[in-house]
């Protein structure tokens, strides 16, 4: 199972040392009481200004599931004056017509809005977005459009067995908001009213816990845009959100089963995992690299996700975090895969990795981490996510050095502590008779 070839040994011997340019550190600016975290990249023509609002899943009750996403969707679809006619258009269209883009994502602790544009167009776009942030539309047409858009996104996600499995495992692992489907469900969305959305917005869209992460061609215009977005929120403080808690694992894996319109089965394993700021985080990345290499056959190039037998998702946007490992049943027999993985994580906990194996996976883990966030939106998220967990905004830049220090004992400890117990989600094809559901 474990390939023992020391990758790149000859090539490494020839390699001339080429130090990477030192990444500039994130600077912190005052946005009238709130904080802005600014990371300049003059090599790109665009700037991403990302607003984090403490109005994520943790603010929802079970009965309100989908409300965080619905309010965000309402903001994007709120009508604003068009530049081309007297008719109103959704905010996203208005932003696009001015040369930018606006999107959102819902997490356990926050909802984040990513506004992206050139420095030249940001001054015209940011005030527009700010006005809607302060007062979204709750009229029936906008509400219906928001519901329709969310339902379509949910349906799209349902086609990906990995996302289905992750959702099942989150629901099993977490006790509160983090357990809920990020976008709600079609059924839950139908129960949510305009009054619910307005109350949620009025209560949680406040300046006290909000902050900005800006990446790209930053400067005076992005600073001003950041101030405009934050200033759109009332200056109130909201009580801290409930910290996610988790359920203890059973000694035997909890098996979760569902049927979907997929042609082959998927198995997704969910483990507890150290959070971004935990001392075991770097060692877990090494384990991630190690596990992702199991069953990997020789290939010419990096295989696309859909054609890989195995893959991982590390959910470190929540603390405590969850680690998931999926097996594509079309390429690996699920029973064989599950058995081999169980044996492997047990063996990794029982005895230390040989030095050459450890070095190999530290190397790949370090590289994979450097490629973790590449788009402006992801880079801004990386900063904001660290801040949301009370960490330094440049935490991600320190992980590579932490990986270099990982020892066999660290890997063994992590394998023992986090990878011996897990839940299993099975996503099976619907039968011809329509079985399952």
């Amino acid at each position, binding site marked *: 199972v474990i390939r023992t070839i020391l990758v790149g040994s000859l*090539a490494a011997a020839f390699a001339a040392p*080429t130090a990477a340019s030192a990444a500039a550190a994130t600077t912190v600016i005052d946005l009238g009481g709130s904080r802005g975290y600014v990371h300049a990249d003059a*090599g790109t023509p*665009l700037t991403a200004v990302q607003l984090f609002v403490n109005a994520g899943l943790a603010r929802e009750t079970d009965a309100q599931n989908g409300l965080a996403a619905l309010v965000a969707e309402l903001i994007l679809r709120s009508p604003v004056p068009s530049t081309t006619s007297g008719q109103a258009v959704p905010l996203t269209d208005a932003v696009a017509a001015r040369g930018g883009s606006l999107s959102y994502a819902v997490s356990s602790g926050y909802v984040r809005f990513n506004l992206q544009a050139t420095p030249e167009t940001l001054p015209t776009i940011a005030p527009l977005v700010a006005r809607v942030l302060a007062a979204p539309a709750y009229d029936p047409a906008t509400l219906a459009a928001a519901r329709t858009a969310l339902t379509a996104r949910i349906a799209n996600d349902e086609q990906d067995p990995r996302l289905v499995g992750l959702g099942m495992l989150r629901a099993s692992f977490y006790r509160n908001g983090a357990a809920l489907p990020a976008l709600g469900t079609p059924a839950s969305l139908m129960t949510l009213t305009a009054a619910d959305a307005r109350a949620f917005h009025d209560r949680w869209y406040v300046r006290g816990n909000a902050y900005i992460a800006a990446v790209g061609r930053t400067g005076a215009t992005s600073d001003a845009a950041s101030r405009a977005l934050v200033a759109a929120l009332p200056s109130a403080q909201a009580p801290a959100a409930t910290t996610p808690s988790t359920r203890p694992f059973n000694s035997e894996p909890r098996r979760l089963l569902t049927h979907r319109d997929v042609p082959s089965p998927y198995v997704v394993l969910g483990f507890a995992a150290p959070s971004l700021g935990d001392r075991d985080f770097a060692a877990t990345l090494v384990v991630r690299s190690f596990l992702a290499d199991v069953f990997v056959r020789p290939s010419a*190039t*990096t295989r696309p996700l859909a*054609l890989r037998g195995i893959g991982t998702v590390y959910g470190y946007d929540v603390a405590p975090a969850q680690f998931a490992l999926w097996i594509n049943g079309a390429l690996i027999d699920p029973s064989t895969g599950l058995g081999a993985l169980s044996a492997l994580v047990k063996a990794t906990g029982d005895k230390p990795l040989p030095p050459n194996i450890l070095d190999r996976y530290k190397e*790949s883990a370090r*590289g994979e981490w450097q490629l973790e966030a590449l788009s402006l939106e992801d880079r801004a998220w990386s900063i904001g996510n660290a801040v949301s967990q009370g960490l330094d905004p440049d935490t991600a830049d320190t992980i590579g050095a932490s990986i270099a220090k990982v020892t066999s004992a660290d890997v063994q400890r992590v394998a023992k502590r986090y990878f011996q117990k897990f839940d299993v989600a099975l996503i099976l094809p619907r039968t011809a008779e329509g079985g399952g559901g």
Partner: protein
Amino acid sequence: VTIHTMLRAAVTAALLVVYGAAPADAQPSSPTSAGTLPGGVSYELLPDPAQPAAAVALWYRAPSSGFGGTPVAGLSRLAAATVAASAPITGTPLGRLIQGFGGKLTVAAYPDSVSVIALVPPDHVSQTVRALTADFFAPVMTQAGLQIAQRDVGEDALYRSYDPEDAVEDALGTALFSAGPLHDGVLGTPDGYRGTTLAQVRTFAERAFRPANAILVLSGNVNASALASIATREGSQPGSEQPIVQARHVDPAPLARAGHAGGIGLGWVGPPIADEAAATAMDFVADALFAPDSGLVQKAIGTRKATVSGRFVTFHDPGIFLVTISGPDAAAVRPIVERALADAAKPMAPAAFDAARAAFVYRVMADTETPVETAETLGWYAVEGNPAYAPSEARSRYFAAAGALTPGGVAATAAHYLGTAPAVVTLTEQQQSSRPSGDKKRT
């Protein structure tokens, strides 16, 4: 094994690989954005030291179906994958080397070009440049490597054959052109790849992948010193491949096929890349009509169950404008698409035009956000023969052309190129058709 050993010996004799310090004249005295190195390798350099990663890419002008004889659809992809899968003289296949330090390696084949792109951590750029150029400039190709490549490329082709856009666009090339790589297609089939011999692949690679035909693109967290790591090869054939002549059908006949994916395709011949104003106008038209969510066609479709995509592909000569309509309501949506295309020949109202152009320019900029996207864009425009026109802020000709667009000019260009009857492709989905990976979406 014997063939492998003999080949390695021959290649070792023919190859002069420069490890570490390069000859003084091989290294530019100061960082420049583009140029040609003494071995004949062209390069494009777009550093951005604030990026967390780097892309190292090799682009080649080469017909996807081979340089002559019986066309083999997708031969260029298979050849590049075979090089990446074969153990070179340094002992580690390229794909494994790159992934060993956490990088990603991709091969992409287009009708008249092929690219190999490595996304790597910044401290592995020189090593990647060295390995990539050494492996491709003097390709060692083994039977074992070919088998791995045949399996991988065959799986990719099968998977992509379920994607309506890929299948329709491949067929539109056949409908638009009577011969040449666009006619032959790039997808290929698993059986076709399995039937390709090592000799065929090797012959192709020796000609296509030689240094003088290479365009090296470095983007992201890179600097010019990485150029010192480029391998060179003594005695390789000088000169790059000339642009490929595409023989057009004068009056394209409708084409009907059965396959894994169903859909309707409409295709037109467009301006060459040298006609920057017209090519930019066609890009604008495609964006205004077909941009996801905000395009005029996308909005006109409403709740109908159909997916429509459209794009202008800036080939050397001619470019092509391709539209794909798929889904249960494809036939019902086709008149909407045709009406929108006809309306493109009428000037837009000034305010609507300004808004559409702002959205278009933003999307073009957003398409070069990451090192790989930049390498793809720069490489494409270089291999098609007009690198200075690549959409890049540093090379502002593309955006100058976008800024110079007018409603009347765009309408006239659309009328000229889209005013004729299109080539039409109808793909019928075979029954019992099920995508092989357990995943309906391409990821």
